[in-house]
């Protein structure tokens, strides 16, 4: 059975699109057929992160209007044959689509794909409702900040009310050194409030920004950074593998020497 997963957060800018792009790529590299759905209508950027912007011809809106077939709108990834993107319309508002239509669309994708991963917009309005309409599971992305966690909590409640019970947590942009001196919430602090199982912890990593600008998901890199590794681990855990969490705690050496060590051990 295919899995339909929505990536959502409540608060904006916490890394939903980054997670979706990397996860999609990582799952495809594990041999899965993956369809990524950009449900952030009006503000699409999943295509940018994947480096597929110049291949977008049709979007969800044209599919729903019957102006093209679903397969025509799917953008095939140039690096991973198992990965496709269903782009969102950039010039139309969120009202161009309703939850029933989204549900149908997502369901028809399950015929040919093992995973359908939907990138949700921020907020809990119509765009959010569209994004979760067909989803059977959810990935909650939050940063270790009070406001982000508060919004994530709200979203968990809404998802539960919608009957989406399989919910996993991703803590993004963790800075272990700040946690250590009590300047940042720890993963445990976040989990204590949200009370949902954790599936990934992604450190703050400037290579995320570099990869965003290049349109090359981190998991593609030859020498994956810790963040890239973390995304890959999330994909493996979704697949049911037991993967140890990366030790991000700066014990003797700091975070950056750890990355360097990791790099040199791979080379």
């Amino acid at each position, binding site marked *: 059975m295919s899995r339909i997963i929505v990536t959502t957060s409540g608060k904006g800018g916490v890394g939903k699109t980054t997670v979706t792009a990397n996860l999609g790529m990582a799952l495809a590299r594990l041999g899965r057929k993956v369809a990524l759905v950009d449900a952030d209508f009006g503000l699409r950027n999943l295509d940018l992160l994947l480096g597929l912007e110049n291949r977008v011809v049709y979007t969800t809106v044209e599919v729903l209007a019957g102006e093209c077939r679903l397969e025509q709108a799917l953008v095939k990834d140039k690096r991973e044959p198992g990965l496709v993107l269903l782009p969102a319309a950039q010039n139309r508002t969120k009202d161009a689509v309703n939850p029933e239509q989204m549900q149908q669309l997502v369901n028809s994708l399950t015929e040919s794909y093992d995973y359908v991963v939907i990138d949700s917009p921020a907020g809990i309005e119509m765009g959010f409702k569209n994004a979760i309409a067909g989803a059977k599971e959810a990935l909650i992305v939050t940063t270790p900040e*009070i406001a982000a966690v508060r919004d994530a*909590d709200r979203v968990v*409640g809404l998802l*539960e*009310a919608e009957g989406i019970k399989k919910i996993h947590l991703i803590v993004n942009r963790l800075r272990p050194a700040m946690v250590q001196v009590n300047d940042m919430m720890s993963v445990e602090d976040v989990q204590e409030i949200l009370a949902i199982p954790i599936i990934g912890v992604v450190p703050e990593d400037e290579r995320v920004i570099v990869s965003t600008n290049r349109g090359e998901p981190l998991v593609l890199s030859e020498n994956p950074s810790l963040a890239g590794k973390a995304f890959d681990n999330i994909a493996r855990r979704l697949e049911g593998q037991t993967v140890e969490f990366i030790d991000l705690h700066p014990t003797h050496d700091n975070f950056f020497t750890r990355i360097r060590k990791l790099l040199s051990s791979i080379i």
Partner: protein
Amino acid sequence: MTSDSTLPDIVSSVAPPSGGVNHNLQVRFKNEEGKLLLILPAETETSSSSSWADIWQQLKQRLNAGDRFWQPNTTVHLAAADRLLDGRQLQAVAEALGEVQLTLKRVYTSRRQTAVAAATAGYSVEQQTPSALNQPLTSSVPLAEPLYLQMAVRSGVEIRHSGTVILVGDINPGGIVVANGDILVWGRLRGIAHAGADGNSKCLIMALQMEPTQLRIADYVARAPTTQLTQVYPEIAHVTPEGIRISIAADFSKSQFLSS
């Protein structure tokens, strides 16, 4: 340690914005002679903000939280009052009930359109309210039966009940519970709790772990201490002549007993 470990930041007695809890603002379940009555708030009594989406969310929360209070295959009568429900909404309610093995049988409504939709969907329809709801609501309503919930009151969720609320689970930051009676939290209280909301300052707020954003009892308001808890005891918040105080639960009953 004395019995009163006080909240450092006591705010003067300000009347909180919400008065008591109107009986009819919440989706409620009521046991009645072997069947279950599902009571929706009347459209005329709720503000426009109480939309179908709110009702739906409340219903799902109730169903998720209270599932061991009814036997499987119990019959449900829906008291929809003057609420307009279309066939799709009725079907959604029936499906949600079906998920917890409850069966929708009968719909009480005062709206013709709802009656037609219900009849079309094959439910028996009565165009009046069930007997249990006919008692007029005067200003001196006795407290409703306790509301027992097993759930996390997450950010943005507001539970309102015209009796005592017993919660097995946490009140998270941003979550709020308002009760005309006491509030018992068998879990961590980190959001807002308002007991005795219709003015009874004898009401209590109890929690296994008391770290509230704010506590209110009747017209009294107290902010949480800004210091971090070092040790955690079950505690009870109550009103004293100095305002809201928090006592260790184990000492509270003793002190109440001695002072009476």
